[in-house]
């Protein structure tokens, strides 16, 4: 069967062609390509030009529908929001570092040493906003307003993640869950990923250097940002990351195929992960005694 139909069902109308293609089951072993002259003999087109134009209109119509359907996927916007958020971080940090260097260069007595525990560049911004030269003040103001926009975007990402990927968000929080999804390239890709891959998303550099040259394998990628991984004692951190990633892989499938929160699963998964950390801590206190 060809795109323009067969028997009594003959037309080049894009909507009908699309329906025909959806229903078609082409066997590639017996497949013979279309011959435009057949469409001409059937009276569907007058010449080659018209044939190409008709098939073109049909494929363009199908492509537009396909793109519209892809944009309707609920994870598409979340993905762009996370990427925007992470890029804003980069931009804010770069600008802040540069501005502080600028301020220091015209203030000889200033040093970042011995300024309490956190002499991070971001903490110097308000001071530069007050004491700096006019152009400096303007840039500082812009950075501060961009930080405010970043904070509200971050809240929005967490809020949206809870809706789009409820089970993953319940395990690691909306932000980390959304970052995992963005790195994987979408919820569909994430749902097809094994837990072992999810564990090292974001540690691609270390992973490929492990595969190529046999350096130690990475224990965690983005999942490290979750408190239960980075707060875990060193000895169990890898185990916690692995257990968490395995549960995340299940959660991603629940989110993709079912799309709603499964409280029983989340509770059991959390108990398993907390249990891992608990056993280790108990033995540790035992050793100390």
């Amino acid at each position, binding site marked *: 069967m060809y795109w323009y139909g067969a028997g009594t069902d003959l037309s080049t109308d894009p909507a009908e062609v699309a329906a025909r293609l959806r229903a078609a089951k082409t066997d590639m072993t017996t497949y013979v390509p279309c011959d435009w002259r057949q469409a001409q003999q059937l009276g569907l087109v007058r010449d080659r030009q018209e044939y190409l134009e008709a098939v073109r209109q049909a494929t363009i119509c199908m*492509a537009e529908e396909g793109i519209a359907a892809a944009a309707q996927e609920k994870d598409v916007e979340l993905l762009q929001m996370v990427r925007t958020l992470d890029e804003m971080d980069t931009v804010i940090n770069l600008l802040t570092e540069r501005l502080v260097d600028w301020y220091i260069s015209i203030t000889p007595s200033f040093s970042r040493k011995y300024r309490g525990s956190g002499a991070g560049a971001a903490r110097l911004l308000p001071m530069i906003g007050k004491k700096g030269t006019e152009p400096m003040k303007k840039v500082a103001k812009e950075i501060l307003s961009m930080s405010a926009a970043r904070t509200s975007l971050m809240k929005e990402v967490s809020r949206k993640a809870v809706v789009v990927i409820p089970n993953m968000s319940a395990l690691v929080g909306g932000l980390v869950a959304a970052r995992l999804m963005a790195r994987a390239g979408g919820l569909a890709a994430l749902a097809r990923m094994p837990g072992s891959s999810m564990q090292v998303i974001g540690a691609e550099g270390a992973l490929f250097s492990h595969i190529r040259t046999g350096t130690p394998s990475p224990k965690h990628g983005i999942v490290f940002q979750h408190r239960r991984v980075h707060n875990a004692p060193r000895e169990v951190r890898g185990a916690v990351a692995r257990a968490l990633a395995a549960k995340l892989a299940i959660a991603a499938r629940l989110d993709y195929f079912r799309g709603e929160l499964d409280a029983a699963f989340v509770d059991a998964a959390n108990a398993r992960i907390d249990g891992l950390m608990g056993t280790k801590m108990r033995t540790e206190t035992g050793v100390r005694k």
Partner: protein
Amino acid sequence: MISIDGTLVSEGAGGVYGERMIGEYRVWDPYRSKLAALWYLDRSVDLAGDAVVLYLGAANGTTVSHVADYVEAVYAVEFAPRPMQDLLVVAGRRKNIVPIYGDATQPQRYAPLLEAVDLVYQDVAQPNQAAIAIRHMPFLRSGGRLILMLKTRSVDVRKCPEEVFADTCGELEAAGLRVVAAVWLLPYHADHAAIVCERV
């Protein structure tokens, strides 16, 4: 292929992606397009005026627009929605491009749209590139050609590019294709090879 003082060009309306123009001709940059790179390395590559081309992995339609300048018709297959939006805009201006939103690993889905073609051009970043090409052989008329742009890094990062290249050539020959030419695309593209085959 048309060249002006050794620079590959194609004849058509410009402004598709900000390409440089020489008079009425659009400059076809070998650093951006692997097909142009192949021409610079192997001048026997040609696109006939009456040829019908099946282009797998059309992306944003940059190379597709140049191919369409030369040939009669291009069936351009692309899988990802974002580049497809660009491809549709390119196809809107060039009436001989048939843009197909489909997955090149599933040719049976769009097979009812296709006619026999003189050239299958494949540029997809997939691990099973040879298998994808072989699955499209029912569309290629006998005596027609396959140009496969092999991204060795997409096949297997652990193997060295030469090994992947040899394996792919072996797979294609086992499927009954005759390898006519095989060129590494240096200095234009690293770790990429072009394999030109003929269907006997």
